[in-house]
C-alpha cells in the first residue's frame, strides 16, 4: 500500500493536516493513530481558543486560526460547540499589569481586539470572580472555546469524506528511512505502508516518533492535570486565565466547568495519572478566584500531555537532512487553538513548498547552536 502522505497522530494536528492536505488536492492521505481520534492530548485539553500571546508569531497564527474557527462548523458540517465568549486574563501584581500593558499594545498591533480593563469593570461584568486582590485584567471578546473532541472528530470525518484513510488503533512501530528519504512505515500488526511524505503529529509522543525516523527533536512531554464539574446553569462567558495562581477555567456549552492547574514543578514524563495533590491545589486556587465553587462538585479528573518545546512555541516544518519529513510538534499546550492555521500552512508547505504566511521563525532551525531561549510566558 502506498500513500502520498502519512500522518502519525490522530489528534487535532494530525486530523486537521489530513483534512487540509485533501482539501488542497493531495490524493492519498493516511492518518495512523495508535488509539482513537482525540484519545491523546486533544481529548484531554481545556479547549480554549485565544489570541492573547506574548510573542507576535503566536499572535499572528492565533488570529488566523480564529478567522478559520469562525467558519469551521460550516466548512466541516458539524457543530463543534465553538463559542466566542471571550478570554479574560487576570493580573494580581503590578509586574503582571505592566506585562499585560506591553502585551496588549503588541497584540493590538497584530490585529487582536484586546483591551486592558479595570477591577471595577471586571467586578461588574464577571460577578462570580473574587476581585479583592485583583489589579487589572486583559479581555479579548473574539477569543473563546470549543469542544476539543468534537472539532477533532469533525476534522477526521471531513478528511475521510475527502478520501483520506484514518487507521485507528494502528500504531506505527517503525519508520523505514533510506539516507535523506523516508520510504515507509511499519505498524504493530506488521503491515508496511510506503509514503511520499511523512508528517509527525505525534503530540506528547512527537520525540519518539521523530526518533523512529532517526531524528532528534527537543520536545518533551509534561503532565497537565484538569478536571470538570457538575453541569451548572450558565454563569460565565469568557475563558479565564490566571497566571498568578497557574489556573484556567471555562464553562462548557453543557454547563460544566473545565479547569486546569499548571504545576510549574511538574517533571517531564509520560505519566498521565490523575493525582490527589492536583485536586487539593485546584480546589484551593479555584475557590480563591471563584469562592462560590466551594459547594460545586467535581465529577471527573484526568491528565494529558503538553508537548513542550524549549521556548514553549510550536516547531513547524522540515528538518535539515531529511527531504520528505515534516513535523507540527511542540505546541506546549496550545495546539488545539492553533490547529486550523497551522494545518492550512503545513498543507501548503507540503503541497506547494511555500506558505501564505511566513512560519520560518517556527522551524527547528531556531534552536540551532542555542541553549538560551526567549520563553513564551503566556502558557499555563
Amino acid at each position: 500500500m502506498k500513500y502520498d502522505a502519512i500522518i502519525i497522530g490522530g489528534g487535532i494536528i494530525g486530523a486537521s493536516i489530513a483534512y487540509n492536505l485533501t482539501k488542497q488536492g493531495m490524493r492519498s492521505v493516511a492518518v495512523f493513530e495508535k488509539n482513537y481520534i482525540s484519545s491523546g492530548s486533544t481529548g484531554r485539553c481545556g479547549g480554549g481558543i485565544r489570541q492573547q500571546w506574548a510573542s507576535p508569531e503566536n499572535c499572528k497564527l492565533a488570529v488566523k486560526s480564529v478567522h478559520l474557527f469562525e467558519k469551521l462548523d460550516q466548512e466541516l458540517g458539524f457543530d463543534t460547540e465553538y463559542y466566542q465568549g471571550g478570554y479574560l486574563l487576570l493580573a494580581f501584581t503590578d509586574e503582571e499589569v505592566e506585562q499585560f500593558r506591553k502585551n496588549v499594545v503588541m497584540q493590538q498591533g497584530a490585529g487582536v481586539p484586546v483591551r486592558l480593563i479595570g477591577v471595577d469593570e471586571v467586578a461588574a461584568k464577571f460577578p462570580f470572580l473574587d476581585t479583592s486582590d485583583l489589579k487589572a485584567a486583559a479581555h479579548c471578546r473574539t477569543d473563546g472555546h470549543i469542544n476539543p473532541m468534537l472539532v477533532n472528530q469533525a476534522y477526521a470525518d471531513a478528511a475521510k469524506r475527502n478520501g483520506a484513510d484514518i487507521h485507528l488503533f494502528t500504531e506505527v512501530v517503525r519508520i523505514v528511512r533510506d539516507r535523506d528519504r523516508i520510504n515507509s512505515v511499519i505498524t504493530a500488526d506488521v503491515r508496511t505502508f510506503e509514503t511520499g511524505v511523512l508528517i509527525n503529529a505525534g503530540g506528547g509522543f512527537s520525540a519518539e516518533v521523530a526518533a523512529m525516523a532517526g531524528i532528534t527533536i527537543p520536545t518533551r512531554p509534561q503532565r497537565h492535570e484538569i478536571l470538570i464539574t457538575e453541569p451548572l446553569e450558565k454563569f460565565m462567558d469568557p475563558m479565564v486565565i490566571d497566571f498568578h495562581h497557574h489556573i484556567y477555567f471555562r464553562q462548557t456549552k453543557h454547563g460544566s466547568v473545565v479547569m486546569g492547574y499548571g504545576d510549574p514543578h511538574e517533571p517531564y514524563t509520560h505519566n498521565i495519572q490523575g493525582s490527589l495533590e492536583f485536586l487539593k491545589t485546584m480546589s484551593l486556587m479555584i475557590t480563591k478566584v471563584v469562592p462560590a465553587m466551594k459547594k460545586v462538585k467535581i465529577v471527573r479528573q484526568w491528565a494529558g500531555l503538553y508537548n513542550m518545546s524549549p521556548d514553549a512555541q510550536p516547531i513547524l516544518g522540515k528538518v535539515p537532512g531529511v527531504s520528505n519529513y515534516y513535523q507540527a510538534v511542540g505546541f506546549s499546550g496550545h495546539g488545539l487553538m492553533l490547529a486550523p492555521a497551522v494545518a492550512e500552512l503545513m498543507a501548503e508547505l507540503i503541497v506547494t513548498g511555500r506558505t501564505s504566511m511566513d512560519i520560518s521563525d517556527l522551524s527547528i532551525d531556531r534552536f540551532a547552536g542555542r541553549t538560551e531561549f526567549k520563553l513564551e510566558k503566556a502558557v499555563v
Partner: protein
Amino acid sequence: MALKINKCDILIIGGGPAGLEAAYHAAKAAPGLKISIVEENFLLGGQLIKQTHSFFGSKNQFAGKRGFEIAELLMDRVRKNPDIDIHLQTSALGCYEGGIVACESMAEGCLKEFQPGRTIVAAGARENMAPFPGNDLPGVFGAGAAQTLMNVYGVLPGRKVVMLGAGNIGLIVSYQLMQAGAEVLAIIEGLPMIGGYHVHAAKIRRMGVPILASHTVVRATGKSTLEEVEVAPIDKNWKIAGESTVFQADTLCLAVGLTPGTELLEQSGCRMAFVKELGGHVAWHNDRMETSRPEILVAGDVSGIEEASTAMLEGKIAGLAAAEGLSGLDLSDEISRAQQELAGIRKGPYGEKACLGKDKLCKLSVR
C-alpha cells in the same frame, strides 16, 4: 474541619457481607492489625440488610437465618472488635499514587486519606438497566431499589407490580413484595427458562403469580409515573412473536442482572478481564482473592456476581490472605479450609457459572 489522615494496615472498601467478613477474620487471625472499613451508606450490612428470605447453605454460612439477621450477626462481631474501626457514610473517591485511597466522609464533611498496607475492595455491584421505551419513568425501579424501600424503610414501592427477570433476585423480590402487601401481576423473563432456584419460583407460583418465560417488556407508559406495562412473547432471537398483554401497573422492577462495581480497581491499574459468567469486567484475581497488584484484594460481587454466602467466604479468604501478608503468620490452613468450603457451596448446577468464570480468570496470565 481539618483533613484527616488515617493510618491503617488493612482498608476494606464496602461494609457488606464480604467486607464485614474480611474485617472480622483478618482481625481475629492477626490481632493487633489495625483495620478500617469505609461504607458509603449510613448502615452497615450492604444488600444483606434488605434480605428477608432465609439463606441456603450450611450452618457455617448461617443457613436458615434470614439475610437481615445474618447482617446483624456480622455487624455485631465486627463492632465488638476494637481493632476494627468503621467509617459510615464514607465513599472511596479514588486510588492514587503512593497507595493512597482518598475517601469523602459525608457525615463529617471532610476528606479522609488512607494509606493502608493492603486494600480489600468489596464494593459490590450495581443493577443493570434494561432498554425499552419508558425505561426512565418514575415507577420503574431496580428490583434492589424496591427491596430497599420496602425492607429497609418500610415503604411500599407500589401496589401493582410487574417484575422483569426470573433470576433469584426477581423471584425473591416478587415474593417479598407480596409479603409486604403489594400485588405482583407477573414475572417476565426473556429467556425460555426460569433462571433462579426452583424453590423460589415455586413459592411465588403457588401464590398465583404467573411467570412468563420467553417474554419481554415492549414498553412502559404513563403520564408522569408508570401506568401500564406492555408485555409480549419473543422468539429465540428476541423478536416479538405474538400479541401483547398490557398490565395496569404502578411499579416495574428490573431484575436483569448485576454488574461488578470495579471503578476503583480499574483506577488502581489492576488487570481487568471480561468474564461473562462473572457479570462483566472484573479484576483478575487468584484463589486467595489477590489481584494483579499484590496490595489490592477483592471479595464479593465486585470479583464476580454470586450471592451473599459466597461473598462472605470470599471476604474471609481475602481478610485472611491480607492478614497473612502483613503479619507474617502462617494462615494457609485456615485459608485452604475456607477455600474448600467455598468450593463446596459452588458444587451444584447454580455454582457452575461462577466456577466456570473463576476458572477462566485463573487461566489468564497475571500480566
